């Protein structure tokens, strides 16, 4: 600690250079924090499917291929399966394609039974939903976003499903009530969700009748998920519609990976940023030490040993990188709400920022070590020869 004033003063020896170096590292760590958080969000999804007691059964070869609804009965018969429901991907937007709506046709009995206790929805709204064929239950956040009202009609455009009545892709629903996630951590994940009757969907669509996108199961004992998954898949082995059953979170991951290896893309961007940063900061540190050779020689003359000189230069590098990293990461933390808006349905965690500090320390060591070693090996007589 007693060396801090010396290290601090040395760091600010060239104020302009230090400020610009700090800014470049801050921007790099702001980017790091944002991308790392997004990567974390995609690696730890929680898009409305909570708990370890949920399984998802999809077509073995692709989640875009449907499964017969009749499988539900067979899956329900598997020991350990408490409840089974079925869902299809509706692919909807409201008015414009940028207004994505996570509309799901669900079987009202089994779906709400499987997700018992996960939604806050009034009894009246639920009753109204059950009684109305074209009813929709809409998340409060979605209602607020588009200014929808209970009792109103909402037209949604499906990107997949045409109606057999008129061949149109436009579907209209009656908003009968709202719902919210009981678990606050799921609030963001469900903020774009709209639920409507599977029966309506199945009867009205022009193709795919009797087929579903995937099944969702609740198991009594989560520790038995693996054998239960195997038993479900064994039921349909060698059939035209072989299945793949997996924990809900794994399914979400697979779903997200349809868009590409997001983690790889993010790491590639970060790699490029830090590679550039290494040269920039490394060059600054080298230049800084080069300019201070006589001063470092004087410190050695006064009795500062090689280890202390190495430590002083490394500490300077650490101070620069860690301060900038903390500021950059704090800014990216402050930007979390903005990222969340852009990534609806994906939960974000500030813990994803922790690797940033480790990255800062690593960066400091990599850029600080070469000039620190150079300073340590400095020959006093040679270094003082130019200026005594």
């Amino acid at each position: 600690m007693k060396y801090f004033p010396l290290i601090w003063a040395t760091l600010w020896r060239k104020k302009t250079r230090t400020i610009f170096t700090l800014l470049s590292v801050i921007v790099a760590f702001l980017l790091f924090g944002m991308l790392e958080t997004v990567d974390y969000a995609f690696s730890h999804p929680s898009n409305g499917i909570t708990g370890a007691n949920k399984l998802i059964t999809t077509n073995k070869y692709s989640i875009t291929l449907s499964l017969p609804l009749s499988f539900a009965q067979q899956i329900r018969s598997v020991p350990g399966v408490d409840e089974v429901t079925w869902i299809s991907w509706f692919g909807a937007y409201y008015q414009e394609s940028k207004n994505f709506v996570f509309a799901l046709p669900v079987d009202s009995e089994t779906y709400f039974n499987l997700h018992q206790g996960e939604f806050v929805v009034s009894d009246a709204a639920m009753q109204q939903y059950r009684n109305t064929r074209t009813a929709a239950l809409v998340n409060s956040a979605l209602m607020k976003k588009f200014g929808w009202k209970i009792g109103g009609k909402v037209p949604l455009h499906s990107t997949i499903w045409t109606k057999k009545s008129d061949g149109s892709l436009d579907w209209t629903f009656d908003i009968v009530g709202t719902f919210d996630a009981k678990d606050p951590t799921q609030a963001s994940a469900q903020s774009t969700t709209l639920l409507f009757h599977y029966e309506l969907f199945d009867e009205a669509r022009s193709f795919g009748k009797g087929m579903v996108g995937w099944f969702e199961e609740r198991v009594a004992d989560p520790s038995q998920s693996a054998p239960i998954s195997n038993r479900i898949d064994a039921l349909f082995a060698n059939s035209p519609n072989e299945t793949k059953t997996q924990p809900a979170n794994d399914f979400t991951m697979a779903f997200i990976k349809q868009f590409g290896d997001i983690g790889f893309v993010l790491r590639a961007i970060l790699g490029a940023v830090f590679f550039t940063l290494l040269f920039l900061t490394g060059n600054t540190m080298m230049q800084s030490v080069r300019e201070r050779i006589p001063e470092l020689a004087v410190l050695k003359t006064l009795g500062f040993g090689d280890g202390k000189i190495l430590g002083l230069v490394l500490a300077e590098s650490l101070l620069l990188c860690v301060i900038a990293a903390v500021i950059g990461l704090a800014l990216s933390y402050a930007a979390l709400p903005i990222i969340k808006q852009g990534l609806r349905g994906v939960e974000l965690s500030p813990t994803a920022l922790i690797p940033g500090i480790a990255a800062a320390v690593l960066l400091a060591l990599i850029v600080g070590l070469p000039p620190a070693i150079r300073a340590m090996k400095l020959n006093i007589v040679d270094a003082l020869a130019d200026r005594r």
Partner: protein
Amino acid sequence: MSEAIVSLRNVDKRYVRGKQSVDVLQGLTLDIPKGEFVALMGPSGSGKTTLLNLIGGLDTPSAGEITVAGQRLDQLGQGALARWRANHVGFVFQFYNLMPMLSAQRNVELPLLLTNLSSAQRKTNALAALTLVGIADRAKHKPNELSGGQAQRVAIARALVADPTILVCDEPTGDLDRKSADEVLHLLQILNREHGKSIIMVTHDPKAAEFAGRQLHMDKGALLEAGVAA
């Protein structure tokens, strides 16, 4: 004669640069008694600074024995030499070599960072050293806010603050005008006479050398003669 604070026996110093070898000091033998103020004079390239480096523990001889403050320097490694310098030697350079980003007081405190003194004690000692050299009122000033003479006084305070056994000064007035030079030399004289500091000073300036108690003349790596000033 009092005990020798510096004792050199048959000291050689050879520098090797690539394939070239240069003998800077040859068979040099010298005793400097404790409490003496010695001026080392001679033309450029005569080996004055090399001799000063050896006495100050900044360099090691190619051959021979060097004993300073009772320690055989030629037997010490770099780490031990650094510790020895911190405890026994105060350095004053021609261009002051102060840290430009630190105040005068912080500059003077630098050698004390290597001790176990508290922050408050370091500050007290630094101010005491600055008071001793008559520049306490400039403690908060940075080197670029000081005149040459003032900066050299700060450098002398830095050299003194850890109470070294010996002061090693390389052309301490080489960058100063006559008036400032005389003030600095007078200060060194007081430190020698009133505080008993042993001082070895390299200088080209015969007027500066007159402030020393003894003048040693060097040429081509050897001592020519030893004179005693008034």
